[in-house]
């Protein structure tokens, strides 16, 4: 049995920042990640990290833009806190070694990005997430924080109403082990793999939200799933950063003529505009990077150029790149306070995994990384403080054996004709079609019954591989289970919200209804199914 003050689950930027902060606050800390931290989805963030560093900028203006993108559903206190602390965190990252692009005076350069009214996205070429992740991982090693890489968390351990750790499966040794903790921080990222296609990594399957929800925690605003406007849609989908639009790229039709959309609109509006502008034309929409100029493409967007070539087989300095809005990042997640406390004592959540009210109904471009470090630090420190005062809890004695039995029960040579991949593919299609950019009551009902059907098919599917070591069929089974659990919550939350706001657009309720719906949706597991309530904004 491993024993720590704070156990952080998830090795992306939020988890790393939280682990570093908790350790600096004096706690013993361990990080558990189902893949190596440097392989996490944070590495895919490209465009930038927001901080109001410009002379023409201020925390107030930054807060205004964040609130506007959130379309009335943000918690003001949380937004203020992000706006106030963003600069300090970005400067900290700079000191720790992020190689930010510099302006002519040698200071951190900032660029236009999405619906930010000022140039406030600090960036490292088009690899900002990769660089921030790299530097945070360096600092994790500096503090000698033990990192359990390729350990898959199967359940949270509860002592009564309090979280006291987790069980995790070490993929390499094929062994299930218990981790005792006085505080557990979930930082497992989003749940966008419920959609297909999507912009995210293979492991972005909502494990943390699902673990928390099954343990009785409340989820918030789960219907809010942001679509990214400029994604090459073939194969696995390749996101092309909107920072290219800020740099002069155009959205055009097949003939190269500009499609009239407001390039600096919030993502939900831009995605809708692109979808609507192209729904009646066969050719669809394209991104034209040529106006940026070949030299700038190669120097400021080297990764975009490289991946457009290797993934799409196109030359970004010459060819038009087909684009379509595609599921990107959820705003919803585990309901938390600004300090990351969930509705379960001892359980914290942060980053894309959490919903603290920062993002409301839409996330401002460039805020994902800022959120992960500002709140990563805050939540790491809060968890360390909590751990100091928390009485030593007992890890439930029978839990490890129970979990082992549960996993063993999933395995059987006789698994029938159905398969995890088929169920996952159908789920992805259903989510994109019925709970995508535009939703309506009929579609949501179809989605829900489809999800119910897929859930029961999933329960019938067995893991055929009896092996213990690197059994990806087993972890895939658990991940799909998480996604199906959350899909139901997304569908029910989307059904409940009978209005249009931010990322949640209803054909049957096209107007924003502030009188009834300027509030969060809250989902709680009740008798095996999601019960949806409202929660008023704290503002």
């Amino acid at each position, binding site marked *: 049995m491993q024993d720590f003050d704070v156990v952080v689950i998830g090795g992306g930027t939020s988890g790393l920042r939280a682990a570093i902060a908790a350790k600096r606050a004096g706690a013993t800390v361990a990080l558990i990640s189902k893949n190596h931290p*440097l*392989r996490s989805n944070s590495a895919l963030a490209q465009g930038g990290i927001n901080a109001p560093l410009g002379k023409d900028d201020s925390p107030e203006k930054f807060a205004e833009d964040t609130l506007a993108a959130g379309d009335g559903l943000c918690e003001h206190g949380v937004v203020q806190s992000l706006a106030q602390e963003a600069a300090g965190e970005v400067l900290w990252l700079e*000191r720790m070694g992020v190689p930010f692009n*510099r302006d002519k005076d040698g200071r951190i350069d900032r660029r236009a990005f999405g619906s930010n009214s000022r140039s406030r996205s600090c960036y490292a070429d088009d690899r900002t997430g990769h660089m921030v992740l790299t530097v945070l991982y360096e600092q994790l090693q500096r503090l000698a924080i033990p990192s359990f890489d390729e350990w898959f968390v199967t359940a949270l351990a509860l002592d009564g109403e309090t979280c006291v750790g987790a069980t995790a499966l070490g993929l390499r040794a094929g062994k299930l082990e218990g981790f005792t903790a006085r505080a557990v921080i979930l930082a497992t990222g989003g749940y966008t793999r419920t959609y297909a296609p999507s912009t995210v990594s293979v492991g972005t399957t909502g494990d943390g939200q699902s673990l928390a929800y099954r343990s009785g925690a409340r989820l918030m605003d789960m219907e809010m799933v942001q679509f990214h406007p400029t994604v090459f849609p073939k194969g*696995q989908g390749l996101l092309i950063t909107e920072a290219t639009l800020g740099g002069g790229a155009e959205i055009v039709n097949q003939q190269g003529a500009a499609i009239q959309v407001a390039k600096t609109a919030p993502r939900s509006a831009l995605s809708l505009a692109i979808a609507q502008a192209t729904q009646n034309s066969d050719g669809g929409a394209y991104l034209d990077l040529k106006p940026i100029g070949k030299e700038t493409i190669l120097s400021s967007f080297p990764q975009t150029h490289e991946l457009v070539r290797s993934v799409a087989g196109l030359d970004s300095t010459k060819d038009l790149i087909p684009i379509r809005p595609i599921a990107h990042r959820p705003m919803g997640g585990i309901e938390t306070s600004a300090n990351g406390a969930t509705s379960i004592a001892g359980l914290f959540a942060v980053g894309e995994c959490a919903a603290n009210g920062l993002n409301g109904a839409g996330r401002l471009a460039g805020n994902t990384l800022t959120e992960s470090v500002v709140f990563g630090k805050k939540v790491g420190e809060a968890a360390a403080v909590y751990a100091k005062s928390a009485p030593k809890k007992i890890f439930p004695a029978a839990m490890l054996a129970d979990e082992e039995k549960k996993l063993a029960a999933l395995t059987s040579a006789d698994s029938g004709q159905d398969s995890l991949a088929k169920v996952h593919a159908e789920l992805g299609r259903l989510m994109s079609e019925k709970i995508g950019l535009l939703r309506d009551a009929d579609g949501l009902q179809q989605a829900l019954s489809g999800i119910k059907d897929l859930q029961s098919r999933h329960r019938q599917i067995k893991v*055929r*591989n009896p092996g213990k070591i*690197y059994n990806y069929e087993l972890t895939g089974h658990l991940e799909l289970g998480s996604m199906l659990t959350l899909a139901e919550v997304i569908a029910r939350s989307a059904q409940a919200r009978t209005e249009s706001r931010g990322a949640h657009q209803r054909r049957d309720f096209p107007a924003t209804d502030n009188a009834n719906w300027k509030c969060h949706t809250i989902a709680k597991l009740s008798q095996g199914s999601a019960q949806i309530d409202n929660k008023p904004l704290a503002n």
Partner: protein
Amino acid sequence: MQVTFKIYRKDPEKDGKPGRSNYTVEVPDGATVLESLFKIRDEMDSSLAFRCSCLRGHCGDCMVRINGSSRLTCTAKVSAYTQKGPEISLDPLRNVSVIKDLVYDWDAFMWNKIRTVKPWLDASDAPTNGESVIADARMKDLRKVMSCYQCGMCDEGCSVLPVDINFLGPAALTKAYRLVFDPRNQDARDRLKTAEGPKGIWDCVHCYEADEHCPRGIEPTKRIVALRDEAYRLGITNEKVARHHKSFTASVKESGWVDEGRLAVETEGLTNLPGLMKLLPTAAKAIVRGKAPLPYLHAKRPGAEQIKKIIEKGEAENK
């Protein structure tokens, strides 16, 4: 398109012996090797183990050998490997120990070696008013080096690792470069000492395979050469190869040509008695065969003064 994948297999829970399984699958045009692997795992053999994460060339996790060459499966199109016939072989990298199938030991292969170079900046945690003011040209160089996504292709191509698995390798030494040449690092000298230690920069044979292999154009060999130059410049020359370089230069500078006797002695180190003793049989043989006529004298060659001037000019330029 129907393609047969011939995949390296090893199951540590069975006999642990390497083998190969063949899977013939129908894959759509434009499919990647990774998508084919998913299909095989789902439809034919759920025990097949392989790694992947980002799915689109961002993270470096899915590196294997496709028809013998190291590639990321997520960006490798099947059609690029079937021109000679509908067969594709998939193997783990060469310089790794395999755990299961295409899953190999990244810790031993790379992560532990990177950890050896103390891969972090020792910066203060205290808040400051502003950022370090640094010209973008220096940051640009760091961004290039830090674009490394640890895919392992440089270590895979390395000529030294197959003969000395303990060599730190180009990936870890590229990390060292990032630490030594980051103007914000207070402990650059310490990091250079680490990289200069045993199995470090001097063990590179500058075959430039790492530069050929790196998919991001980071040129790890050039980074290693830059570390050597920096070590030399700062007088951090503790390793045998460094002494060899030093003695070589000194001898050519003084006499216009290499004094091989002196080179051998100084390379071993004047205080390294066991090393010097090892030279004795070679020296004796050389004397017997007339290669080192006694008394052993190393005369200046004609033009030595000019050669000295050239070396001095080079030294001045490097200061």
